[in-house]
């Protein structure tokens, strides 16, 4: 009833929206949120392909679980870095963090 192409198109759209957010926003947190959108698009793609092409091989869901773990850890470290940069430079706009020393 729902062809695979719908899911793949949806995840392509979500990925491109995330790509625009990561390339065009100034705030580091907004870039992080756009990266989370991209990771979600990848997850949908993985699970859709698992469901439609190989529903008896559980590799698709296992892969998606590992992507969850990776996304959580990189979000945590990214936000710790943002907090640290905010403490030193008092800004979170990525354009203003352009000098290595001070």
């Amino acid at each position, binding site marked *: *009833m*729902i*062809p*695979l*192409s*719908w*899911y*793949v*198109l*949806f995840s*392509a759209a*979500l990925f*491109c*929206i*995330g*790509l*625009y957010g990561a*390339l*065009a*926003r*100034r*705030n580091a*947190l*907004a870039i992080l*949120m*756009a990266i*989370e*959108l991209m990771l979600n698009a990848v*997850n*949908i793609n993985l*699970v859709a392909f698992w*469901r*439609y092409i190989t*529903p*008896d091989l*559980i590799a698709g869901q*296992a892969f998606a*679980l*590992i992507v*969850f*773990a*990776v*996304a*959580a*850890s990189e*979000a*945590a*470290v990214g*936000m*710790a870095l*943002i*907090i*640290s940069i*905010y*403490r030193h430079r*008092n800004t*979170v*706009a*990525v*354009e203003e963090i352009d000098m290595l020393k001070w």
Partner: protein
Amino acid sequence: MLSLLQIAFLVAAFLTIVSAIMVVTTPSMVHAALWLILTLAGVAVLFLLLNAGFLAVVQIAVYIDAIAIMIIIVVMLTKGATRQRIRQVNKTWWGGAIAALILFAGLIALFTQTPALAVNAPALAMSQEALLEDLGMALVDVNRYIIPFEVASVLLLAALIGSIMVARPLVRGKDEEVEA
């Protein structure tokens, strides 16, 4: 005539895409975080439509209950910089928009030319309980996916230690501020 499943998919997908667009265009960070929560919930609904119930609940538990709350807390902690209505897109935002549009057009062109993508869902080989048990066994089976599982746990440990070390508060020494 659209079946109920197709209506459910279209509603969920439309809601998710609209929320995602609002995430990348809202100037206020708090509102962007709220739209992100709606997007993540929409993705969880799509997981349910794909018969991956376990992943849907894990999506809510990991993304909404952990990452989204972390984002809101960091928005609060960096309040001075995020509350102002400063310009939220950089000077070359049109480059990003063009890149995203070209990528989307390319992907659509690719997918419409692939006949293998027009299939409907085959029947599930096992019941939901058997799927869950198979997933659990696959993650600890020596011949299957135990290595990515263990590497993911080491990665989480490294992220835990790393984020604590990076975000430690400053200690004001006699002459200068040093990391604690």
